[in-house]
């Protein structure tokens, strides 16, 4: 009991950064890393290093804002840039996150199918249990489940180690960048950044830090939490790429989905790798499907000033409950309808995410440099150079990404 409690207390301080970063590796993230590993082997590993740095730079600012102002990002945007900015941002977030939820439920469906369970049973089961868990479950119970789910990600580390890669080439590819002017290569490296740095996680991180009531005095611990979280995310990504790069790439196996990776691993690496990959995908998808709709409902209600809370009824918090419930319900239906435009929805969601990200980041940078809000905690000058250039690079890449998604032909270099 006592030891358990100490661990729990440790996790209480170290929570938001690590959990946010873990959920960032949702179904679409895992898909991107698996595809990258199978298609280019270790060739794209190096992109993880600059991505991690960019992620840390951004998340640190967001975390600092949460600590100092005690408010979420959507509150701050609404209060400082007015209702129009907040409204369109939230509308974009709603659509993009609907797409994310579809992607996650599709990931859940795919992982269940390859385990031999029909998606027509597992989708309703998954969706209803998520809904019940969040609206009827006690907070402590939900938190325990989330923390346990975060631990399951380490399955990917195990599978990476079991693949027995040659560490020499792996490390070399990680730290020595290789540039290739191949459109698929460029697209995938941008996609890695795009699935790692998303708009919704900035909102989520800042709110959960504000919510925790982390004070200025504890800010250093919080920064460490963010850095550890970002590193863990990318270590998981690293092992996914390593697994697929070691086992699938040499055989020339090309995949388009994370579930295909699990299937392809079966004959090559045996049942364990197959089980780990499908269970981890199921876990990540479900975790994403729990958090993303919930987070969306929270930010929207906060920005608009509507009552929010999971233990409220449809009568007390109608907007909140309807946004949350409809996101899950509609996303489940979309995944189950045969021939529904799943790919279109996911592409749409990626495009909207890409379009939102520059706004979110620019607003965040302007807010973090606002003396009235941040006092002495604004960015130091040198840090501003780093963050502005990081953001400019990300914005250029995402714009490029969006353009190539919308016009695949024009995107060829």
């Amino acid at each position, binding site marked *: 009991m006592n030891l358990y409690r100490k661990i729990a207390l440790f996790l209480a301080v170290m929570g938001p950064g690590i959990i946010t970063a873990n959920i960032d590796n949702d179904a679409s993230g895992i898909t991107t890393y698996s595809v990258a590993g199978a298609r280019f082997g270790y060739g794209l590993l190096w992109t993880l290093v600059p991505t991690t740095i960019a992620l840390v730079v951004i998340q640190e600012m967001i975390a600092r804002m949460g600590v100092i102002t005690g408010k979420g990002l959507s509150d701050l945007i609404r*209060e400082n840039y007015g*209702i129009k900015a907040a409204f369109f941002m939230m509308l974009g977030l709603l659509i993009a996150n609907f797409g994310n939820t579809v992607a996650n439920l599709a990931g859940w469906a795919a992982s269940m199918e390859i385990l031999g369970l029909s998606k027509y049973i597992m989708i309703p089961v998954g969706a209803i249990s998520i809904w019940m868990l969040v609206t009827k479950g006690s907070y402590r119970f939900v938190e325990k489940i989330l923390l346990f789910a975060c631990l399951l990600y380490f399955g990917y580390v195990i599978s990476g180690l079991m693949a027995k890669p040659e560490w020499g080439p792996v490390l070399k590819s990680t730290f020595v960048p290789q540039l290739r002017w191949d459109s698929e290569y460029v697209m995938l490296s941008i996609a890695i950044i795009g699935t790692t740095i998303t708009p919704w996680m900035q909102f989520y991180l800042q709110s959960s830090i504000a919510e925790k009531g982390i004070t200025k005095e504890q800010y250093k611990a919080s920064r460490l939490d963010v850095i550890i979280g970002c590193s863990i995310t990318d270590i998981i990504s690293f092992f996914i790429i390593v697994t697929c790069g070691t086992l699938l790439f040499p055989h020339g196996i090309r995949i388009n989905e994370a579930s295909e990776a699990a299937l392809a691993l079966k004959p090559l690496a045996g049942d364990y790798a197959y089980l780990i990959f499908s269970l981890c995908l199921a876990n990540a998808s479900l975790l994403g499907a729990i958090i993303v709709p919930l987070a969306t409902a*929270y930010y929207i209600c906060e920005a608009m*000033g509507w009552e929010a809370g999971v233990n409220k009824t449809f009568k007390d918090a109608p907007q909140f409950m309807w946004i949350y419930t409809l996101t899950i319900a509609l996303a489940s239906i979309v995944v189950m309808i045969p021939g529904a435009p799943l790919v279109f929805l996911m592409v749409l969601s990626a495009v909207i995410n890409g379009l939102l990200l520059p706004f979110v980041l620019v607003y965040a940078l302007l807010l973090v440099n606002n003396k009235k809000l941040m006092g002495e905690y604004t960015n130091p000058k040198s840090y501003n150079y780093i963050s502005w250039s990081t953001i400019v690079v990300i914005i250029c890449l995402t714009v490029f990404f969006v353009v190539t998604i919308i016009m695949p032909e024009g995107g060829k270099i």
Partner: protein
Amino acid sequence: MPFFGELFVSEILKKPVLDPKGEELGRVKDLLVVRGEALPKISSLIVEKKRKLFSLPWADLNIFNKRIISANIYSESLKSYEMSEEDLLLVRDIFDKQIVDANGAKVVRVNDVKLEGFNTEAVLIAADVGMRGIMRRLGVERGGEDLMRVLRGNLPYNLISWDYIQPLEPKLTAISLTIPRQMMSELHPADLAAIISQVSHKEGATFIKDLDVETAAEMLSELEPDTQAAIITGMDTEKAADIIEEMPPDEAADVLSDIPAEKAHEILGNLEKEDAEDIQELLGHEEDTAGGIMTNEYIAYSPEMTVKEASDRFKVNARDVETVYYIYVLDKDEKLIGITSLRELLLAEPDCLIADIMETNFKTVSPGEDEMVAAGIISKYNLLALPVVDENGYMHGIVTVDDIIDILLPPSAKRKRRKV
């Protein structure tokens, strides 16, 4: 001295202001608000022309409605204006901010503000916190009405009268009325806690400042530990000490154990000696043990006392003690030898001795025992409180049933609002 009926502020923003000849003086950018007689009023319009700001006093306006705004003066006599943090500007400082609706006891966001003509002034009559306000700001109020008509519903107005608004910003608090503050103090502490847990700690601190110490202490007890700690840490030591003093010692100890040691020390230094000692004693116990959740405020009398003496004493002691249903009987060495209840005390003959009515067969728990064991005993024997007694028989405090319920079933404000 312009006369007008009523309008929403968003309807006049960016509208041109004309001089007597019909030339444009500038466009409405903001409104300066000052304290009025009953309600806050508009003292001047801030207009913008060619990126420069000018202030146009209310008295110089001629017509003021949502179609036409015109002034008595020409552009030469306009005074230039510079944004100042001291001024209260309606759009900058009130729009989009959170306020507390004292009537409904919840936190809402201001979408729009309704002005009304009162004598010769324009006063802030209500805040629009509904869907209609959002649509009006986005410029689609008409469209929303049409849509709802198609859906056979209507778009309700959701206005909160300014009488019931309790602002969260210090600057706004200065112009607010006393009615909401009184209403706030009458709310149940658990409702107040729910409001506090929805706003940032800075705003929470402003909010608490307006409450009287007793209400603030009761409300603080209802919050989850992290929020308690953050609020107390952010307060100045004296006010924090006043609030801590009002809290039952066990809860005070819980709060102090969660805040930085230095601050806790300062606060303890500011308490009355007796209170500080009580709290310090409790701070020595592990958090999840019976000692950690007990309180050392209880009623204890000597066995030689008569029932009459005890009842008289009880009337004095019971004022400051939270749990009064059991009376503990201690011998000269402060060892617990018996327990009697308030019922027994009331029913007994006045000249009976306490020793005669006390129960000597009672349950106790030792200070180091796990809190769940204490919970088990309380549940099994249907107790309201359980004495904490060490191996030598000395009484340290009592574990009360409400603390046990908080462990088993945290009240909603103590649960986190959002999933981590």
